[in-house]
Every structure is written in C-alpha cells, then in structure tokens.
C-alpha cells in the first residue's frame, strides 16, 4: 500500500528535519541569547558577576531604546537613518546647555519640541517629495549632524546632573530596584512599545501601511498620521538615548550616536523583523539588541578592535538574514 514516493527517503528529501523544525525564524534569535551568554561565561573569566551582567544590559538598553523607533518605522514601511544624528544633537544640547545654566525642564522641553519637528519632517518629506524615507532621513540626518557639530564647535566643556550619571552606572539604583535607571526605562518603554504595536489603532494601521500602502489607503488607513506618530516616537527615543549618553561621558560629543547608524538596523534585522515592512515586533528587536550587545561584549572581551567587531556584526547579519530568507516559502506568495 505504501507508495515509495511517500516513503522515508522522500520525506528526507522534501520534509523538514526535526532540527530545522525547532530552529526556525521564530525560535532562532531566542535561542541565541542564552547560547551566547553561555559562551561569554565560558570564555571571559570572571564574567559572571553582577556588574558585568548589568554593564551588558546597559549596552543593550542603549541600543534597544535607539532601535525602538527604528522598529516602528521599519514595520510601517520606512526606515529612520537620522537616529544617530538626533542622538548626537540631544547629547550636546544637554551637556552644553546644562553647563550654561539652563534648567533641566527647559532643556527637556526643547528636546521634545525638536524631536516632534524632526519626526514630522521625516514623516512628511517622503510623502511630499515622493522619495523613499531611506533617502530623506539620510538627508535630515546630515543636516542635523551639521547643526550639532556647528553648535558644539570648540566646546569641550560640559556638565550633566549627577543623578543622570547614576542612571547609566552599573552600580546605580532606581528607587528600590537594584538596577540603573536606563534598564528600568528600557523595560517600561519596551512594554509600552509592544502594547502600542499590538493594541492601538495606529499600531495596526502601521503594519497595514508597511504591508501594502495602496491597500492601506483603500482600507481607510490614515497613513500620514501614522507616519508622523511613528517618526516622532523614533526621534524622541533617539533624544532619550542622547540624554543617557550624556550621563555616560558628561562631555559634548556630536558623534556619539554614529555607531547606531547600522547597529539599530542590525538589532531589528537580527531579531527577525523584515526590512520590507508589514511584519515583526518590538519583542524581536529586544532580542536583537541583546544579541548585538552580547556579541560586542564578547568580542571586546577577547580583545577584538572596533573594526573586527563591525566585521563580525556584518557576517552575523548576512548569516541570519540568509537563514530567515530561506524560511519564507515562495509558495505562500503565489
């Protein structure tokens, strides 16, 4: 009765192996976090201490927060390449103006105002100019970078409030929680971002817009409004990361955000959110940020320089993207 064509030989050829069923796009990133952690414990002597784990989480928080807006813009069908410049702008704004004696409230209000303006411009430019966000945000990024550099020109002095330093210090506390503020902030904002994507109208409309902009328009999706919200959130998150960076160094540096040009996209992609838009989640980016932070720490720990780190990240992206790409079966698209 058994036809040879459905026998085990054929199944081996055409069916998916048990291993590939466990390791799929869904699970691979989640598996990588503990695996890499184990690798670090094994290779880096003395890694298993609270302060080194907290340092790792601070690194992941910075990247995770910077990638929050990136995740939203990519899901909505765009991308935000101005994030690093906004980080730099916020960083020099707070370090210089606080030294100049501005009140923190004023500085934060200015930062929020600037972020909204940048967000609106980033959202509207692709619509008005009919150019992809990839280009327009690259442009706004250069402009903002220029402003930040001009503003910080010649100044090497800066000051930040003491509490800001503790929010990014491995021994910092937040109220009764024995973790620095940035990690707590990341947890809270991550929960908000995940809920935003799942449970709000704008979140769902963002997915629709990313999946098929024309169909979204015909289904009554308020694309412009959705893009404005998403790009504004992205600029706000970048500003927040700039503020945390200021706490780190205390000195004005318009270039602090530059590594995040690629790293935010790396975190999103490694997490498994498609660059094509219309899919993914922030949970995935959290995982992606953890992986990138682990990889960087591991490479620094074994004395690899910045260039080697970037090389490894590049290889990781290509490998993972290849694995993810394999999984999406063309047959479901026909």
């Amino acid at each position, binding site marked *: 009765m058994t*036809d040879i*064509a*459905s026998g085990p030989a*054929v*199944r081996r050829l*055409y*069916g998916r192996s048990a291993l590939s069923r466990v390791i799929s796009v869904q699970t691979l990133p989640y598996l990588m976090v503990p695996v890499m952690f184990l690798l670090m414990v094994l290779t880096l002597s003395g890694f298993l201490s609270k302060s080194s784990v907290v340092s790792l989480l601070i690194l992941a928080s910075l990247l995770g927060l910077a990638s929050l807006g990136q995740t939203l813009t990519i899901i909505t069908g765009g991308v935000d390449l101005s994030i690093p410049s906004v980080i730099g702008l916020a960083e020099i704004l707070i370090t210089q103006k606080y030294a100049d004696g501005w009140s923190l409230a004023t500085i934060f209000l200015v930062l929020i105002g600037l972020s909204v303006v940048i967000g609106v411009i980033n959202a509207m430019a692709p619509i008005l100019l009919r150019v992809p966000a990839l280009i327009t945000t690259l442009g706004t990024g250069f402009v903002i970078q220029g402003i930040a550099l001009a503003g910080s020109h010649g100044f090497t002095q800066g000051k930040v409030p003491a509490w800001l330093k503790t929010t990014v210090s491995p021994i910092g506390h937040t109220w009764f929680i024995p973790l620095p503020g940035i990690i707590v902030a990341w947890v809270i904002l991550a929960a908000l971002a995940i809920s935003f994507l799942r*449970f*709000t*109208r*704008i979140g*769902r*409309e963002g*997915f*629709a817009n990313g*999946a*098929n902009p*024309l*169909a*979204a*328009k*015909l*289904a*009554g*999706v308020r694309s412009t409004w959705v893009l404005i919200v998403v790009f504004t959130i992205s600029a706000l998150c970048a500003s927040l990361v700039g503020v945390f960076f200021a706490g780190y160094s205390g000195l004005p540096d318009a270039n602090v955000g530059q590594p995040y040009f690629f790293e935010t996209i790396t975190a999103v992609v490694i997490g498994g959110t*498609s660059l094509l838009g*219309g*899919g993914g989640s922030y949970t995935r980016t959290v995982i992606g940020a953890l992986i990138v932070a682990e990889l960087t720490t591991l490479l620094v720990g074994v004395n690899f320089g910045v260039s080697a780190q970037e090389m490894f990240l590049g290889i990781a992206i290509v490998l993972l993207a290849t694995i993810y790409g394999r999984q999406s*079966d*063309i*047959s*479901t*698209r*026909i």
Partner: protein
Amino acid sequence: MPISKRPPEAYAADQAAIDTQLAVRDMARSFGETRALDSATLTLRRGEIHALAGENGSGKSTLIKILSGVIRPDGGEFMFQGSRARFASPYAAQHAGISTVYQETLITPEMSVRDNIFFGTDGLIRHQRSKSQEISGAHLALDQLGLPGLDIDRPMWTLSLAERQLVTVARAIVRPWQVLILDEGTSALDAHRRDRLFAYLRDASSEGKSVLFTSHRMDEVFDLAQRITVLRNGTTVATVDVAESSYSDVLQHMSGREQAAALMEETNGGSGEVRSAPSALAQRPARSGEPVLRVSDVTLRASSQPMSIELKRGEILGIAGLEGQGQVELVEALCGLSRPRGGRVIVVDDAGRDHEISSYRDANRRGVRYVPRDRRQEGLFASQSVFDNFAIASWGELNRFGILKRGAARKRYQEYAEYTRLVGSPNQPVSTLSGGNQQKVLLGRWTSMHPTVLVLNDPLRGVDANTKEELYQFFRSLAAEGMALVFLSTEIGELLVLTDRIAVIHEGSMQALLPTAEATNGKIVAAMFGQNPEEES
C-alpha cells in the same frame, strides 16, 4: 524483456502512455494541520483541454503548484511524458515544458510589459535572446492573445487588471511549452477577450499541446474543456466527459450535496428566499426607496455624454461594459477615488442633505465604501493574519482613545465567518487561504461595517459557484436592510440575477440604463457594443 514475448495488452498500455501527457496519482500535500491535498488523481492527454473544478479551498491551486514545481508533494506519483517527474523548482518544470499562469497575477508593477514577459528567462548575466527577438516575441504573444498594439515599454502598473492577466498569460506562452496550466487565468477578462484566449487555446490543443485550467464559471468550463476533473476536500471525486455531463452533475460532485443542482436552478430563476444578515450587520433601519447617491451630469471622458443616475436605499445597481469603456472610471468617481471630468457625485445623508464627494476619505466618512478589484495589489495585506485583514477598516469605529476593542472586532469576525462559511483560523496568514476565501475576507472588511453605499468592483472573481449563490443572498439581505449597492461585473448572468437596474457603459457614456426585469442578455450585449438595446431582436 524481449519485445516479442510481451502480451498484446502491453502495446495498448504503451499507446495510452504515449497519449498521456501528464498523470498524477494519489497526490498529497499538507500545510501544518491543513490537508490541502489528500489524494488527487488526474490524467492530462496530449492535445486535450482539461478543466480542474472544485470549490474554494478544494486544493486546485495546490495541485497546480505541485505540477509546476513551486511546492513539493508529501506523497503520490507524478508521471510526465512517460517518466517519473519531480520538479525541484518552477524553472525545472518550465524547462520540461510545463508553463503556468498562477492564480494571483504575479507581476512587478514598476517594470515594463516586455520585462514582465521575459522575466526569469535569462541567466544571471547573459541574456538568452536578443532585444529584437524579445520585442518580436512579445508582440507575437500579445497579438495571439488579442492585445495587438499594446505598448510593451509601458510599465506594468499602468495596465488594467484584464491586461495584466493577459500579460501573465503571454509570459507563459512565450516559453516553449507542451502543457499550459491556467489557474483562473480568465477571471478578469470580459466575454470578448475570453473568446480570443479560448480560440488561441483551441488552436494550440489541435497541435497536440495540452491545457489544464481552473475556472469557477461552469459555462466556461463546458465551453472549453473536453474533460473535467473534480476535486473535493483535496481528493479527486470524479473525472467526467463534457459531452456526457451537465452543470448540475459537476456542481454536485464539487459540493457532495444534492442541493447544488437546486441552487443553480435558483440562480437562473433569480428568486430564492433571502436569508437575513447577522444581527451586528443589521444595525440600521430599512428605509428603502430614499435616494442616497446621486450622479448628476457626470462626464467621464472628454468626448462622452453626461450621465445621471439616482441610487436609492435598498437598490442594487449593476454596471456592465466591455473592458476599458469607462465602468472603472465610473465606480472610482462614485467613491471619490477620482474626480469626474464634469458633473458631481452627491451623497444624501440621513437628514436628506446633499454633500458632494470631494475625496476618497470624504466618501468613506459619508458611508460610501469601496471593494477594489485586484485583491493582491489593492486589497490584501499578504503578511498579515486573516483577522487583521478583516478588521483593519473597523478600528476607526472599534477603539476607545485609540486602544482597540478587539473583543468587538472578534465578534464581528465570527459572525461574518459563520455567515459566509469562511474556513480556516483567523490567525493564519491571509495568503495561506484559498483565493475564494481571500475574497470573502475582503468583502467582510467593509460589509461588516454596514456602509450606506457599497461600491463593488467585480467582487466575486474567483469565488466558487455555490459560495457565489450564498453571497448573492448576502448582498440581497444587505440591500433588504437598506444598503445601496453598486455592482460592477464582467459576467452578465450575474448582473441579471442580482441587480435591480443595469447601467451599460460604452465609450465613456451610459449607453443604456435598464430595469433588470426588462433586461436580457442580448439587450445588454447590444448596448455593450454601442447599439440601442431596444432594437435587439
């Protein structure tokens, strides 16, 4: 084995094998829990035109994707030209001589018609044919399909859906083929274009080539095919000869139910009791007879005559015409997607006040909703779940300070899914539903919101005969509750069954506006060709 010792039957068997182009036996394929194909069996002879029939989700497209190397079977036997075949890729199948037109019109909108036709025929670097060969090949194919003079350098997105569909057919026939497979390759074509395509297919089959096609239109199936294989729930239940079979036989095989035949009679009679829509859909009181939409002196094109139509609550207005005569412009003007050259489109609100429609968003707000024609490009979010696709338009209503009321949307979905017998889970990606069920999801997106006017652009493309009948009932019940429907269709029979009045568009003008009770197929065809319908004898 020495030939001389073979029994004579073996020669007969050999002869049958030679006549057989392609044969599958007990083909099976599952997607996770879903058994899309269970045991499909099919023989395609040389020079034969063969139809593959079955309800939505019966596994036709899955079988076709196996034959053309897109997906692999879990089990079963596949013989092609006398030997065992197992195509590892669409390219391999193509190479062996199986050319396929898939159900979803696969195009790259930004590329030219020519590039779309030859896409994938080249190696990575080397072009396998010269530019002039490509140009003449494209022209020849388009000529054969009744699209002579189509500018092949135009980008694909500027073409109408029917033209795009024909380009995908051209794409299949420019490659050397022995077997041509058309998965609903005629669904967007009007009667005229369809006849051209059929003529081409008949010619090809007389040269010994074989054609396998699917269609949900029985008239098409019986007109074109010599034999019909019927699939039900992934299993072949019958292969019949067209000469010895009838519509109702085939429909009965498809559904496995006796009443299929009765349903068909009803369709032809145009009567039948109206099932009421689920409660959530029936929120508004019926106020049939009041005007809701007024088309006043609208001109669609520079040279066309102004037209005026008044649409009333509870009315179903049909729109007919040959491809490209202006019907699409008309429905797009009705829902604010484009502004007519002259005249106005006016929505009348509950209080009887007039509002001129200024934009699509404006029309939406005033309760005029539009179901687009090309579900892949304009309708669906392929990467999203069935539920997300259904609910996306509802969130404007179903939210509290921007937070979704998912429960309410789930309830809407469940009622709609039950009513229209939408199969599958709300959480599966919409792209894994069969074509007909995808169409139902799209219909549900707007009908579940109960618009005042629902503009439908050929909404039953790819829906099987029994489901169509159910959806006619559904539309009638929506109308009975006071919704006005505008229904553009390429099928005259459908318009005669469903509508109250039919507007026939010819060269941008309204050639006729007939009460359906007085309309006949002949009158409508006459008007479609620009003649006075009353002169038709």
